[in-house]
């Protein structure tokens, strides 16, 4: 189980003289195995919500209760140190999550198909290669809940299919939170949906009604 209780988040603006409220009074409860889609326009606070859920930022007030392990935003390569090799980045994750490095690197190597590039600094990678490494590392840790921010722009068509297989088919029993402004990915993969609008989260009974509401917002 994972829960946001009355979460409120604001950022100081104008040198702290004022504040911009990004999220107000967010409540969301995600049970084991549930797949949630969160829709929202640009700037609606989707990424802020993801950062709060992953624990990268703290809410201004309210509570976040995590009773399951939650992934970092998937295919997220922002944490890669350019001067480190792919292997070293895998090693960091293994140390942090207490995983066996040998089996991990084997999986990453097989899945990402990066071959000898794994021994080169990440800054030499193309963006597609970096995304493949990021996704492969994400799949080597067994989380109870996966966070997916926006459509995953991961490499070519073939690799995208592989990712889909690995995430939505092999890990069908896991909880997921998909945040996007595209409706298709949410319609295809989610069992529950909510819309983030002007800092408030509206939860709907069905995915279809959430999508309809979102369509009206954009109309």
């Amino acid at each position, binding site marked *: 189980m994972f829960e946001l209780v009355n979460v409120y988040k604001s950022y100081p603006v104008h040198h702290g003289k004022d504040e911009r409220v990004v999220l107000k009074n967010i409540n969301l409860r995600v049970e084991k195995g549930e797949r949630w889609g969160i829709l929202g326009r640009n700037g609606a606070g989707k990424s802020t919500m993801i950062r709060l859920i992953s*624990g*990268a930022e703290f809410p201004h007030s309210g509570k976040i209760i995590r009773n399951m392990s939650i992934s970092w935003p998937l295919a997220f390569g922002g*944490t890669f140190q350019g001067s480190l090799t792919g292997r070293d980045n895998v*090693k960091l994750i293994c140390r*942090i999550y207490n995983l066996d490095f040998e089996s991990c690197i084997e999986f990453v190597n097989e899945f990402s198909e990066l071959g000898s590039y794994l021994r080169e600094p990440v800054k030499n990678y193309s963006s597609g290669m970096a995304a493949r490494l990021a996704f492969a590392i994400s799949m080597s840790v067994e989380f109870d809940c996966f966070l997916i921010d926006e459509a995953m722009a991961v490499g070519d068509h073939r690799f995208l299919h592989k990712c889909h297989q690995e995430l939505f088919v092999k890990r069908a029993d896991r909880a997921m939170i998909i945040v996007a402004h595209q409706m298709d990915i949410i319609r295809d993969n989610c069992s529950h949906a909510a819309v983030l609008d002007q800092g408030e989260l509206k939860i709907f009974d069905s995915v279809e009604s959430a999508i309809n509401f979102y369509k009206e917002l954009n109309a």
Partner: protein
Amino acid sequence: MTDKSKTNFWYQLGIQRRVVWALVMRELITRFGREGIGVIWLVVEPAMFIVGVMVIFSAIDAPRDGVSMAEYLAVSYPTLLLWRTTSGRVAKALDANRALLHYNPIRPIDLLYARIVLEFAGAIASFFILYLVFVSLGICRWPNDVLLMTLGYLMVAWFSFGFVMILGALSELSETIERVSHIILYLMLPFTGVFMPAHLVPAQYRDALMLTPLINCVEMFHAGYFGDRMETYYSVPYAMAMNLVLTFAGLVLANHAIRRVKL
């Protein structure tokens, strides 16, 4: 609901130890790479600094009371490394690594701890190695009281921890402090017991000087090394009480700064 075994203090401490270690190893590679002498720079860099300062000051100042300038600096300057260079490193730790916070086990304070561990390790190792070299060269002697000297050094390290946490947190909170922090560090020098040992200070000012916790720690360290060869002034209870206050203030401020971390 919550798994009791996972909220256990020792279990959590285990995670933190693992995470800090992972961060230290990452930092080692990013900072020193795998080329050339690599991580040995961690020790060589401060060592070069100490030797350089010793050479310059030996040339311009004469021995006092049978203690040569080189000998005095060899057991004084290394205390500076603990708080001075670490301060510079920790100030940017949160800012430079905030993207790592997406990995849930990494908590912001671990980023600070990792840098402190790394800098302290370099400072301590370079002091230890240089000291043995200086003893073998005849510049330094064996300590008069090893236990007192070690405890004094640990007190300096303890002070440095609190000091670094406070300065690191403040520079995260205020850009002004971040900009003037190196000025603060420089102007602190007379009050650190390194360039001005307490016995050289006129008695009427000494009491005021002894209010700074760092000088108590450094004098204690000196007492352990020099013994009767140098007059030292320090109060262990006072230094411990002040260090405790600094540590507490540092942790509170760091916590406050962390709450405001923004990606």
